């Protein structure tokens, strides 16, 4: 089946080569980082996690978002998702691989990574994160590959795959819950120490994942002979809409608790992110933009005639994706470190090698999506023919 990825137009191959170039550049930058150390990044004693962990967090969400296609299809037998469920699973595979890569590039002694297995530590949330992420990758490979293979042969999906599909549903919730617990259980980091961290992570995940899926499916619909079905995409858009409203609501709850209680520790990071604190506020324009873009996306999705317009739908999905990315893929992790435990402020500026490495991992994700989607689309085109 995978051989279908080897036959493509010159545009397809051009895109692959472009991605390989980006990956190659990032790989060189990573070799440099391995040789010199993480000092080549913008991270510091005060901001000890940066772009890598922020991107990791965001893409765990994208991976978990795939479940928004799986649940309607397998729990509610929503048949319009039958053709696209595999795209959700393949997107999840790419996202989880990105997460694992972001962890690998972030750790100072990657050669010792297997220490996590050698000295299993059940009181560490990272231990569970390792289990759930790798498990989710495996589940999606099993489910995605086998359902597509069955489709290709024109037979129903084999019975033994079903349990894996059902397990993958709570498992998707677990990956983002555990990722939220990485942050939400740390004393002294007020911004992260909130019980709605996991619910909020899930809400933004269920907005961001399907939003990305909508963008890709609209693109697929334009450039290939496979039609995922406008009804399916519209349903997906409604999911994004509800999830994004929930996400913004949770964000509002955070604002209320901080500013109504007027407890300084609870307000400081929000001040820094949205208003500027003690003259520091580099992220303010971005965070404010995230709110505006997010509300704009919700507005587009809420009005049925706009949502049904393909172009506006693409804009809406992109808005939600960008808004959640700024919020979770930038502000959440960096903001947690500001102010530091001494109530002073160090700002964070990612460096060129750091961004090159992060971009390369995005490139790996794009490459996996491209190859897997190429296979899936070829199968679907064959079915249509």
């Amino acid at each position, binding site marked *: 089946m995978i051989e279908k990825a080897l036959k493509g137009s010159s545009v397809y191959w051009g895109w692959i080569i472009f991605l390989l170039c980006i990956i190659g550049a990032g790989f060189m930058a990573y070799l440099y980082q391995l040789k010199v150390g993480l000092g080549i990044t913008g991270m510091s004693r005060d901001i000890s996690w940066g772009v890598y962990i922020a991107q990791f967090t965001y893409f765990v969400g994208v991976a978990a978002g795939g479940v928004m296609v799986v649940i309607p299809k397998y729990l509610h037998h929503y048949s319009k998702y039958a053709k696209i469920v595999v795209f959700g699973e393949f997107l999840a595979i790419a996202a989880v691989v990105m997460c694992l890569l972001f962890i690998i590039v972030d750790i100072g002694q990657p050669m*010792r990574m297997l220490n996590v297995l050698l000295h299993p530590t059940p009181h560490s949330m990272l231990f569970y994160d390792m289990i759930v992420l790798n498990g989710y990758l495996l589940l999606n490979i099993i489910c995605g590959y086998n359902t597509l293979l069955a489709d290709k042969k024109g037979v129903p999906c084999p019975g033994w795959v079903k349990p894996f599909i059902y397990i993958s549903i709570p498992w998707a919730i677990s990956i983002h819950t555990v990722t939220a617990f990485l942050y939400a259980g740390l004393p002294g980091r007020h911004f992260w120490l909130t019980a709605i961290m996991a619910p909020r992570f899930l809400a933004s995940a269920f907005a961001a994942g399907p939003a990305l899926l909508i963008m890709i499916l609209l693109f697929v619909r334009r450039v290939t002979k496979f039609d995922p079905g406008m009804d399916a995409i519209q349903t997906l858009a409604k999911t994004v809409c509800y999830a994004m409203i929930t996400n913004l609501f949770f964000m509002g709850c955070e604002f209320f608790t901080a500013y109504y209680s007027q407890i300084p520790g609870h307000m400081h990071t929000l001040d820094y992110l949205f208003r500027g604190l003690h003259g520091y506020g580099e992220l303010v324009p971005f965070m404010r933009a995230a709110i505006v873009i997010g509300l704009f996306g919700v507005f587009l999705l809420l009005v049925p005639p706009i949502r049904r317009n393909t172009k506006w739908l693409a804009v809406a999905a992109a808005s939600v994706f960008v808004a959640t990315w700024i919020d979770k893929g930038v502000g959440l992790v960096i903001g947690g470190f500001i102010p530091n435990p001494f109530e002073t402020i160090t700002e964070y500026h990612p460096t060129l090698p750091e961004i090159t490495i992060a971009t390369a991992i995005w490139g790996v994700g794009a490459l996996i999506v491209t190859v897997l989607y190429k296979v899936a689309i070829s199968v679907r085109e064959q079915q249509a023919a």
Partner: protein
Amino acid sequence: MSMDRRKFLKAAGLTTLVGLGGKGVFELLRPGTVEAEMNHEGHGKEAHGEKDAGSKIRWAMLIDVMALNKEKIEKIVHTCHHIHNVPNWGDPKNEIKWIWEDEYEHVFPDSYNEYNDILNGMPFLLMCNHCDNPPCVRVCPVQATFRRPDGIVAQDYHRCIGCRFCMAACPYGSRSFNWLDPRVHLEQEIAQGRKLNKRFPTRMRGVVEKCNFCVERLAEGKQPGCVEVAPDVMFFGNLADPNSNVRKILKERISLRRKLELGTKPSVFYLI
């Protein structure tokens, strides 16, 4: 690396047998018991007054901030960083700090009182608090940082994978990461006349480090380096012993501990 691989295979086989976790699961159910049961003879018998088996030790540090001044602070910081071969990067991005100076309002930001002219602006010494309930130990995925039965929160540089979860978890900013190779900088400093402590190793790039309460000196029956050079400022002793020097001082003086509301129970006390 070959030994690591062998050990890994051994442990991997074992964990499969026991089900995920072995010792780890045991640790979750009864935290600390495994370490406590480990053989623990020989370190610092003299320093804690010939304690027999069964008695508890919990090392604590008392810092008399009223007796602190610039000169003493400099001496203490220099001594500690010399003993442990801590490089002096001189920039806040890469810096490594085991013990350092900051003002009251940054040390106790949650109890800052703008009318308190006595404490505001007063220099304090900061270090790892060797918490009784350390968040860094809770989050470390490989037990590279762990709490010894005597209360010292130790760091195993051989095992640390450099994930920096402990730095995010520590509410006291006590931990430093080796963003770059510390030896490269130490060599530059040696060229400029710095002396190494040849009895103590350096660290490597990519691991987290912090104050270790001078375990290597306690093991030899010595006091921590900072106490040795400033015996009128720093007091070290066994908090679990009601008759110890530190307990006697704590009875007489008013003491502060950082961020008690977080439940970490620091072992470093500030005397005012």
